[in-house]
């Protein structure tokens, strides 16, 4: 019993918060102005609590397991959620159904936690659905906007489709190995045609969630349609969580099929980087722009994943951490602008620096970090990803990746140029930045600068 409490600590805390919100909802309710700070505090507590009493162990007949690394991954996600709750304050304040939003968001997060900890295909499938269905609902949270509904529809349908494929794959795995417990599967894989086929189905589902080209097509539409908080959640939290479990699956379970999935990863990651960059090049809508840029980033993540060793997983986790800071900072600025002026086009950012230096610097910092330019942490993140990828000495592969950094730099600089250089007669008027948003941005900014320079962070992750 006691073991249950400690091992499932993060899940339990989260569940507690969810129930609290439920009671508030079914109770006489609470005004957003009071509820939001409360939630933010709770999430902060949750995040801090994530650092203490982490134990390693297994539960439910090896269906659920946790390690200090997994705990850390979960806590990265906690941090992300907390930052979202800060940065999207403007939007959250206005939304009529605040409690529901957080209910959905947190249950999705809960799903991700279980997914990361799952040691059994059943748990994995359940948690995967738990992590994706609520997000679809969140995508539709701008109830009166058609685009929002359309995005949500695309998401739910295609994710249902992909989970259909996934299930088919799982069923084949089950058929060929006779078990749904991951460790046992690892033992029983022999690389037969059927298993490879099953793995490809399986892989496709992951590719869909990670929006790897060509499984990415839903991403941009959903990002653009959904409210910005949801977009942020999708692009950072769910991507991160899936990346974590994806690595675990490949390294722990499908290790016997390495010869199959290594070339697969190489091909797809190149495709992802190139296509993502090429699409990002043209985008005008900042959300869509960030969507494609995040696709390209996934391509880089795959470079490290392909390394198939500890260095790779460390690099990916580190990068996700950095990515959370950078991307959320960008989304934060975007949301402030969108909420107060309704402008989402990059051209509207012209002359932004004149009126809003603080926001401009934060956004610029975020973009530089995404582009991987020092001294931001993004530089280290990217570099370690490529380093990990280089471990298998596929120089041409790294070269392609490195060259892609040029294209990405180009379009990130487009935004910077709009803000700092282009003239504009009617720039966005000075915006008011509420305290939580400012706090969130400062955290992000600090994170962007320090995560890289404080090298022990990387070493700590590596040590886990």
């Amino acid at each position, binding site marked *: 019993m006691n073991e249950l409490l400690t091992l499932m600590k993060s899940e339990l805390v989260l569940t507690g918060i969810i129930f609290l919100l439920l009671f508030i909802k079914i109770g006489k309710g609470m005004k957003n102005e009071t509820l939001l700070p409360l939630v933010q505090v709770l999430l902060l507590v949750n995040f801090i609590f994530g650092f203490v009493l982490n134990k390693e162990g297994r539960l439910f007949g090896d269906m659920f397991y946790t390690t200090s690394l997994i705990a850390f991954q979960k806590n990265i996600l906690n941090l992300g959620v907390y930052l979202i709750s800060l940065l999207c304050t403007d939007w959250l304040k206005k939304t009529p159904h605040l409690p529901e939003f957080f209910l959905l968001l947190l249950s999705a997060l809960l799903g991700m936690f279980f997914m990361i900890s799952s040691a059994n295909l059943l748990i994995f499938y359940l948690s995967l659905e738990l992590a994706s269905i609520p997000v679809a609902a969140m995508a539709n949270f701008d109830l009166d906007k058609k685009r929002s509904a359309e995005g949500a529809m695309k998401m739910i349908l295609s994710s249902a489709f992909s989970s259909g494929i996934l299930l088919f794959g799982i069923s084949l795995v089950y058929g060929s190995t006779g078990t749904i417990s991951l460790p046992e599967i690892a033992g029983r894989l022999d690389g037969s045609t059927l298993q490879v086929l099953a793995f*490809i189905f399986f892989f*496709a589902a992951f590719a869909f969630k990670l929006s790897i080209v060509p499984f990415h097509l839903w991403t941009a539409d959903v990002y653009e349609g959904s409210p910005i908080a949801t977009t942020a959640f999708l692009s950072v939290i769910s991507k991160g969580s899936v990346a974590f479990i994806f690595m675990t699956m490949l390294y722990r379970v499908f290790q016997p099929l390495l010869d199959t999935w290594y*070339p697969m990863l190489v091909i797809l990651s190149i495709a992802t980087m190139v296509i993502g960059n090429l*699409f990002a090049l043209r985008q005008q809508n900042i959300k869509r722009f960030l969507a494609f840029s995040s696709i390209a980033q996934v391509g880089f993540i795959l470079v490290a994943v392909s390394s198939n060793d500890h260095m790779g997983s460390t690099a990916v986790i580190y990068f996700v951490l950095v990515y959370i800071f950078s991307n959320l900072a960008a989304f934060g600025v975007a949301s402030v602008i969108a909420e107060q002026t309704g402008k989402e086009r990059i051209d509207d950012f012209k002359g932004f620096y004149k009126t809003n230096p603080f926001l401009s610097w934060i956004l610029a910092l975020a973009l530089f970090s995404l582009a991987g330019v020092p001294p931001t942490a993004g530089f280290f993140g990217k570099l370690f990803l490529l380093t990990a990828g280089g471990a298998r000495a596929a120089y041409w592969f790294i070269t392609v990746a490195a060259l892609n950094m040029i294209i990405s730099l180009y379009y990130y600089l487009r935004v910077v140029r709009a803000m700092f250089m282009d003239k504009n007669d009617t720039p966005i008027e000075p915006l008011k930045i509420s305290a939580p948003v400012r706090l969130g941005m400062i955290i992000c900014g600090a994170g962007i600068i320090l995560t890289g320079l404080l090298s022990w962070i990387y070493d700590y992750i590596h040590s886990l």
Partner: protein
Amino acid sequence: MPNATNIALIPLLPLAGFILLGLFGRKYIKNGAGLIGTALLLGSALLALYTAYDYFFVYGKVDGVYQQFVPLKITWLAFSKELSIDMGLVIDPISVMMLLVVTFVSLMVHIYSLGYMKGEERFPTYYAFLGLFTFSMLGLVLASNIFQMYIFWELVGVSSFLLIGFYYDKPSAVAASKKAFIVTRFADLGFLVGILILSYFSGSFDFQTLIARLTSPESNEVKNAVASTFLGASALTWGAALIFIGGAGKSAMFPLHIWLPDAMEGPTPVSALIHAATMVVAGVYLVARLFPVFSVTTPAVLEIIGWVGAVSAIIAAVIACTQTDIKRVLAYSTMSQIGYMMFALGVSSYGGEAGLGYTASMFHLFTHAMFKALLFLGAGAVIHYVHSNEMKDMGGLRKKLPITHFTFLVACLAIAGVPPFAGFFSKEEILLAAYNSNTAIYWIALITSGLTAFYMFRLYFTIFWNKAQGEHSAAANKHGEGGLVMMLPLVLLAVGAAGAGFIPFGEFVSTDGKALESHFHLSFSLAPVALGLAGILAALWMYAKANDKPARLAASLGGLYKAAYHKFYIDELYLFITKKVLFNLVGRPAAWFDRNIVDGLMNLTGNSTVLVSEGIKKFQSGKVQQYAIFFLGAVVLLAVLFIYVWR
């Protein structure tokens, strides 16, 4: 023994003048500038005199042979243990002789300029530049290391550039200064490569070592050098030839002479100093400095030198007969006289009697410095008076400018080789040397000397006689002949021009340092003197009174006259090569290529990327079912790839 500090001070004093006036002249010592400069130069002139005396009469001669001393040598830039650029002082007959010439003429010019340049806005700058030039020239003369010589070689080039362009707001002056610098620069390229070649084989930049190693035919250095050939000639020959190109450029030898006439845009005293007496003979000095190498190891190059000198001498003389700008006439005569020195070296060979040409060349250099400087300064006085360079604005000035007239006459006689003036003796020796070794060159030289007499006296008569008195008084201003400061140098130089010939030059300067008594045959000198007198008489007949004889003669000569008047169209040729060929056929294409091809490719990559991204946007069609098709298609593709293709 030579005293290093004294000798070092000779160039350093003018340098001090340059720094002082260059930094503070403009603001603080505007009026005193001239005096400061002159005083400093007087100092170094005296030191030079002392050094010369010391060397020639006290310690220089060891058992009948003048030795070479290197009292000072500082490593300036070490390329390796062996190969290094040193800053040194070399003391031997020619360097000491040059010390005298440079400091003396420079002093004269300094004094003269006190009057000539009075009231100039950039008076201090002018003296600063003079100081810079004198310093560089002395450094060049004293160089003990071929690279050191190259360094000062460049420095005299730039100071001549600065002084020619002294009137920087006159476009012609700017153009002339540019031309002078670039042409000489081009020649210096040859010098540089020559240095690289010689030093590569001799493994040293130091004159003594270099000469020692390259003049002993059995030494490995020479063996290697001779072994490696290029286009049939040995590497050493190429090196020597290239070095001579450098010298030819500085000394305005044909065909690199085009810059010299234009250089007359500079203030006249400058022309006297740089473009008559000192810098232009640097080439001669260079050849003399490396004479052992030329004569012992690469006689072929020495042959070339002889011919280049002869050709330059006669061409310049012919052109000089037709020019109407007095300074240009003098410029061409300078070129012609330097031609003399060059071929004198060319016909000479190393050691003993055969080395007569060498001595003669140095002797002529010495005397020429005197009378040519005098001529320029005199011309300066005339120009100062009539405010024009054109002969037609002059005439009948002999009463107006008595001293100038007299000194000018002396100079003319000297250059025309009329005994007992200086020019006579030096020219005699040159002709003798030529006669002994190369008759063709001898004849050329003989004709040239006739022409020289003719054009010099053409000049003399048109300036001082020709028209009746006072026709030009309108043009002339009232300040007369210019004060003492301008006349004193004229007189002093006139004394030199008159008496320098009696110096027993062979005693002091010869190829091997042994004394070489100049024997003097009356019979031999009949021909040149006669020719000279003939030239003078012709000039008298044509130009003593204003008449139309010259015009008719010119008409009768027709094409030849025209060609000579247009300096044989050599300038035009160069202009064609630079403007048309270099700029239009090389520069413009290069610039275009860079903008359009190289840069174009860079832009192309960028633009094509954008195009591609525009092209593939259709895939993001917004149709959820199409997305599913892609999804499925990808699954199938992967399945095919990894199940059928790669297994």
